[in-house]
């Protein structure tokens, strides 16, 4: 099928599609690596503290109580640090994915669904290969949203964006982990969403309802008339009001499906396990089962007897697709939103408390410096912007750095002046 090959060429298929087992394995590996590193880092920190305290031991201890507290803290360190399990990590990431939606709503106008969905997928992809113990989701989440506004062509200026983020997050804090994030995404910014596919499907169904439907390429015997009659013959859903027209029914199914895609599809592993087309059809299947079956039958032919299933590739494909859609639908159904399940919030709070103890201390403040190391120009620009927008006084280290830079430049000019043909023309002009 041409459409399938089209999807196979996407980076989402090539790099971000997993089987359930490989997804679990990947998360477990990530967690194991991160826990190991956290333990090592904490041990190093403890050793450093101990050597510092032993050097300080020369002076008389101020109070008995203080040393007691010290030894108690040391005892706490002695016992093994409890790290997050992969499931807890997943829970935490899920909680922050829910936060993305809230952040998106805090803007006026609210961020488009597709931006939020992209941000959530960025976050989920990021935490496949990174652990919340290494990079706290509270730092990564705003950055993912900001990156999504840029990649989805919905740019907001950084300052405006920073105002919408809850807490006292500054603009620099938001973009600090940007490079780390992009690197972990393997610079695959393209996320294939099921939303546009849903629009297409509903659009086609509506044209069928109006009697202008086109036959599917594999079933040229269909006419717009037979299609329309078929659609009208679809058995109504049990709970629906019987007097509603087919257009109303389509509209209702559309809204339900869209809500499912906005929440359940984002908060589960659906994007990793299924293709966007399967996701929207599964959601549609949940929303209006009879309608979804009718639509698939127009594309893949009516159900056939099991006997000739083997020789017809289309009916084989059909049975396979139905199997996949059922799996996907049950995955989507398993999702429970925060409002439905208040215990999730409590769990998230518990996990983040636990995370406070097992956060990698060496990475906690490291993100910014990493960014600077990678993109010195951007970091310098950011620093300059901060200096301009700040209280006007540059810090002492900045002054020192500037002085050093000026000195270096002066030396460079002198060296060039001694050159046989003089220095660069532009440099000379600046000297004049």
């Amino acid at each position: 099928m041409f459409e399938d090959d089209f999807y196979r060429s996407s980076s989402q298929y090539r790099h971000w599609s997993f089987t359930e087992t490989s997804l679990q394995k990947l998360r477990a590996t990530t967690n194991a690596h991160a826990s190991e590193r956290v333990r090592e880092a904490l041990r190093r920190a403890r050793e450093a503290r101990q050597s510092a305290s032993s050097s300080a031991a020369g002076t008389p201890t101020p109070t008995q109580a203080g040393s007691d507290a010290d030894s108690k803290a040391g005892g706490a360190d002695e016992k093994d640090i409890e790290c997050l399990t992969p499931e807890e990590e997943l829970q935490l990431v899920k909680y922050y994915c829910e936060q993305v939606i809230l952040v998106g709503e805090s803007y006026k106008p609210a961020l488009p669904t597709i931006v939020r969905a992209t941000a959530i997928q960025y976050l989920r992809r990021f935490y496949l290969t990174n652990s919340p113990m290494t990079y706290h989701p509270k730092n990564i989440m705003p950055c993912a949203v900001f990156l999504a506004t840029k990649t989805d062509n919905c740019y907001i200026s950084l300052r405006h964006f920073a105002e919408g983020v809850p807490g006292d997050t500054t603009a620099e804090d938001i973009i600090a982990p940007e490079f780390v994030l992009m690197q972990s995404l393997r610079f695959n910014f393209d996320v294939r969403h099921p939303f546009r596919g849903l629009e297409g499907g509903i659009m086609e169904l509506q044209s069928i309802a109006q009697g202008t439907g086109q036959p599917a390429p594999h079933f040229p015997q269909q006419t717009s008339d037979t299609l329309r009659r078929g659609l009208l013959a679809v058995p109504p859903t049990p709970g629906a009001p019987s007097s509603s027209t087919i257009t109303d029914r389509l509209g209702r199914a559309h809204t339900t499906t869209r809500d499912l895609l906005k929440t359940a599809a984002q908060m589960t592993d659906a994007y990793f396990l299924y293709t966007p087309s399967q996701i929207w059809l599964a959601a549609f299947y949940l929303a209006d089962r009879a309608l979804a079956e009718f639509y698939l039958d127009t594309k893949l032919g009516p159900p056939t007897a099991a006997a000739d299933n083997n020789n017809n590739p289309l009916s084989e494909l059909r049975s396979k697709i139905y199997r996949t859609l059922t799996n996907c639908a049950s995955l989507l159904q398993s999702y429970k939103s925060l409002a439905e399940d208040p215990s999730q919030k409590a769990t998230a709070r518990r996990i983040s408390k636990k995370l406070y103890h097992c956060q990698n201390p060496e990475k906690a403040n490291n993100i910014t410096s990493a960014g600077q190391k990678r993109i010195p120009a951007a970091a310098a620009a950011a620093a300059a912007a901060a200096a301009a927008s700040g209280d006007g006084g540059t810090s002492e280290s900045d002054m020192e750095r500037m002085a050093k830079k000026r000195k270096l430049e002066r030396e460079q000019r002198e060296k060039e002046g001694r050159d046989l043909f003089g220095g660069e023309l532009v440099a000379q002009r600046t000297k004049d």
Partner: protein
Amino acid sequence: MAPPRASMAHRGDEDEVCPVCKSSRYLNPDMEFLINPECYHKMCESCVDRIFSSGPANCPVAGCHKTLRKNRFRKQTFEDINVEREVDIRRRVMQILNRREEEFDSKRAYDDFLEQREEIIANLVYGTDVAKTEANLQQYASSNVRSIRANQALEEKEATYFQEQQTQEQELARMRRQAAKMEYENERREVLAGREDVLTRLASGRPADAAAIARQGQKVLLKKSSARRSEEERIRQKQAALRNSDAKKSGQPAARAAGQDDGGFIKGLKRIKTPEPEKPYDPFGGLVPGKRDYFTQSESYPSSYLEPIRQNAQIQAGGFDLREYYSRTLLEAFAGLGCFIDEEVSERDSAAPLSVGQPVSTTGQS
């Protein structure tokens, strides 16, 4: 048709006698003997003129009833009439079975062909299976006319080329000889002239300069001869280079155009492949533009919020085409419907096990 051995023994003798008219060389010293490859019976020139001038006739030798023609009579090349005959047969067979080594799959196949040819020649010479061999040969000749002719042409070409090469080389050698001779002459003349010059200068100059003039004269002479020598060396090198490049250019045999069916008479011939006719160029590489497997796009779709866009000239003026939107949404509706990730990805992972389970950035000290 065994030739009469007795007459052969006396060829060139003074008292050689023509077996037909019995006139002897003694009486007619200019007598020439001729043979006909039909039966190899020898007779004198005057007999041939006498008997065959008025058209084909039977051989006058008693017991031989072959019909001979005058134009086929020729002088004997070899003294032994058997050798003469074998050479004739060989020439004829070689003209028909003129396959070349490059036409065979392997060296072995070519060698087998050579052996087969020798066998045929031997059969014809010693009279074993003559009828069958002849028939085979004729059949081969008639079914391979084209390749035989092509090979003949090739052979001729090679022969003429070889001839040309020979004459060219001879010519070059002659020119070299002439040049050497001229050079020698020139040198001698110059030596003489130099000597004379020195003498005249000695005669006209003062006695004190005598030694200096003599030394100078010697030097000039040496310089001239060495300059000439280096010049000649240069020309010679140039000519040699020219010769080499000529040889390279014409050394290639012409491309082959052969390949009729020879009915399996000769084994191991190379199959001549006719190149497949080139297909017309397909810029999409087999992809049919606009072809979809799950849907057929129609001109417009009913939609309450797309309809205003379709009608709005302001939006349309910029080149926005709603059909682009239709095709994109419909394509994305079905893109990947038939991609079963659990199957395909596990296949892919088993093919390249490194792609999963390698958290990239957690290991990086970024």
